[in-house]
């Protein structure tokens, strides 16, 4: 008597056993196919740690979008699963998370990370594994040179774009001497490189360069060093928590020149932390933060307003920030890329590698789209595709963001 491939113990007779065996086999074969019909997005952001003011709105936006997309029936019927891991603002943890998402969770696309230092660290991982990654950090060298970063895209404006905006504002204001205070990591370093490039051909001179730690509680020495030369302007290149500390200390020391900060402070909590010291501070940022002041013919305004309304309906009045906007842009680009890929041809959801390649190629090939942060046009040469529509100069007046230019 032949041995059945699957032993089924049942009370019924021979036919009962046969039916059950066939049923089981069908189930085992069909289930992977049914499960595989899901778009798996692996997201890693800094929900805790020194960059939590940036990562928390990103995590909230992921949650919100997953519910929204699935409630609308998924992407052309394909459900979306966003697997979220917290990097705790730590580079080692970010690399571990991305490895886990790629190897264990078998994701089709990764969104990582919140800060430049972490995003740079995972580039090798995603390049070797051949998984498309959309970064939520600022440094230009996350996506450059494109020949070595085929799998890496990003949605926030580069530091290059933002610093160019600041330098233009400085030239317009007739300022010539600048003190540069920055975080002592890749973000601060990137800012300095872009600054040195951007001031070529202008009258601006960087007279002081100081660094501070992301979690420092005392920056007196650095601020003293900066204000001693009495520069026309001070540029602080950091994120919410540390920039607020420096801005406060500058006010304490009675600095009266123009203070510029980076777009890493685009969270309402910055206004609370810096308090009165933030009055008069200028920064380059995405138009979302002053969406109610944008002109009526701005194509970004309706998209940004819709995002702000949806986010604040869930998470509270006045909580929307540009960082959540970057996360929104990332998920939207994936959604549009998958739609584009499905229009081009049938996608075999069982073949993870094919899906990853299809998404990557579609990101480059798909037409430009309007996001919360600007108008994106990913191409083979430019994995960010933003232009100057993505940037406005904002001044903080009486604890609120106002459009300056």
């Amino acid at each position: 008597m032949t041995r059945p491939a699957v032993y089924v113990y049942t009370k019924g007779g021979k036919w009962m056993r046969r039916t059950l065996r066939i049923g089981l086999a069908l189930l085992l074969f069909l289930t992977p196919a049914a499960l595989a019909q899901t778009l798996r997005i692996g997201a890693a952001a800094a929900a805790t740690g020194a960059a939590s003011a940036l990562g928390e709105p990103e995590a909230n936006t992921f949650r919100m979008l997953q519910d929204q997309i699935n409630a609308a029936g998924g992407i052309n019927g394909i459900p979306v699963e966003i697997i979220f891991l917290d990097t705790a603002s730590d580079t080692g943890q970010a690399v571990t998370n991305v490895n886990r998402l790629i190897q264990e969770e078998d994701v089709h696309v990764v969104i990582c990370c919140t800060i430049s230092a972490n995003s740079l660290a995972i580039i090798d991982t995603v390049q070797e594994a051949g998984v498309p990654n959309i970064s939520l950090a600022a440094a230009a060298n996350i996506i450059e040179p494109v020949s070595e970063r085929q799998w890496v895209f990003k949605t926030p404006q580069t530091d290059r774009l933002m610093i160019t905006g600041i330098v233009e504002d400085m030239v317009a204001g007739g300022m010539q001497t600048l003190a540069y205070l920055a975080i002592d990591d890749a973000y601060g370093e990137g800012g300095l490189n872009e600054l040195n490039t951007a001031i070529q051909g202008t009258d601006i001179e960087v007279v002081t360069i100081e660094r501070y730690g992301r979690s420092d509680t005392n920056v007196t020495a650095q601020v003293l060093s900066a204000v001693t030369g009495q520069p026309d302007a001070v540029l602080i290149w950091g994120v919410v928590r540390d920039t607020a500390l420096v801005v406060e200390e500058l006010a304490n020391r009675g600095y009266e020149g123009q203070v510029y900060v980076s777009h890493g402070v685009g969270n309402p909590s910055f206004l609370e932390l810096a308090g009165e010291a933030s009055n008069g501070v200028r920064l380059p940022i995405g138009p979302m933060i002053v969406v109610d002041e944008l002109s009526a013919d701005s194509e970004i305004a309706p998209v940004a307003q819709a995002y702000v309304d949806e986010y604040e309906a869930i998470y509270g009045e006045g909580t929307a920030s540009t960082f959540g906007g970057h996360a929104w842009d990332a998920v939207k680009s994936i959604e549009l890329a998958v739609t584009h890929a499905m229009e081009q041809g049938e996608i075999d959801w069982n073949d993870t590698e094919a899906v990853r390649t299809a998404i990557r190629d579609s990101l480059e090939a798909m037409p430009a789209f309007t996001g919360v942060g600007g108008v994106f046009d990913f191409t083979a040469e430019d994995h960010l595709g933003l232009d100057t529509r993505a940037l406005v100069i904002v001044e903080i007046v009486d604890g609120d963001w106002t459009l300056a230019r």
Partner: protein
Amino acid sequence: MLDIPLILFFEGLTNGAIYALMALGLVVLYSVTGVINVAIGEFVMISALTVASLRDGSVPGTIYLLIAGLVLWAVYGAIADLRARRAAKALWSLAWPLLAGAVAYLLVLAISRTAMPYLAHIAVAILLTTALGPVAHRVIVQPLPRASALVYLILTIGLHLALTGLGLAFWGPQPYTLPPFSQGRLRLGPVLMDHQDIWLLAVSLLLLVLLWWFFSRTLHGKALRAAAVNKLGARLSGISVVRAGRTAFTLQVFLASVAGVLITPITKMAYDFGFLIGLKGFVGAIIGGLSNPLVAVIGAVFVGLAEQFSAFYISSAYKDVLVFLLIIPVLLVRSLQHVDFEEHVE
């Protein structure tokens, strides 16, 4: 015109005062019990964030820590008494910490709902955080009376990780700020100082003087010093070494909680800020050889000053590196001075 060295000096002094409280606490605890408490910075964080919670009108997570510790205390005590076959005493050992926990919870609940002046909140927060001291000693140190310093170090590292994680769970990742004790600035010659800086220096100085008086003039303090010098001799003289250890732990946590309330109006406090403060205090304690409180305090103040001056004059990027590099010459000098290391005789 700014008088830079003077500004840096007072800034360094302010930070140094906090590090001095940390260093003193570390030295006191190590000399009496052999425990290096890596989690000392967490108590700084906990007391500050407890005040923030009370001011918000919410129940601070600290009370849950206290209750968890008291439950463990009850269980340990009951088991010890059952092993000694004292059933009635076991029942009491089980009951009283739980009762104390319940009473404390009700009190904290009532206090969080009542409007009180700022200083009252501070007093409650310091009391609540200091109560964690004897509980931590009973639960962590006392069950292992003759372990090596390394074992205690690993235990307190675990405590540090646990408290940091719980701090995140209770208070979230964002920094909290507290108002200064009084608003305003005072001019001392060319330097303009915030009132809070002056309060910080004054209270730290007062605490140091009180501790000096405690250790040199009171019987209780002298008993602690005796336990630090020679445990066996202290026991023979009728001094309970366990009680001495508990007092030392409580003292350290008290110093840390006061430091937390003093420093937060100046630098804000988040769940992960405490560790670095404790670490710099540890450098000060090492300068004091973990045994000499006076040198430890001076060393800690020196660390605060070195931090500011090296950040300005040498390199702001390497500020922390330079501070921690101070440990190396200190250890070199000490290892050449002391040939005989028998400071703890059992």
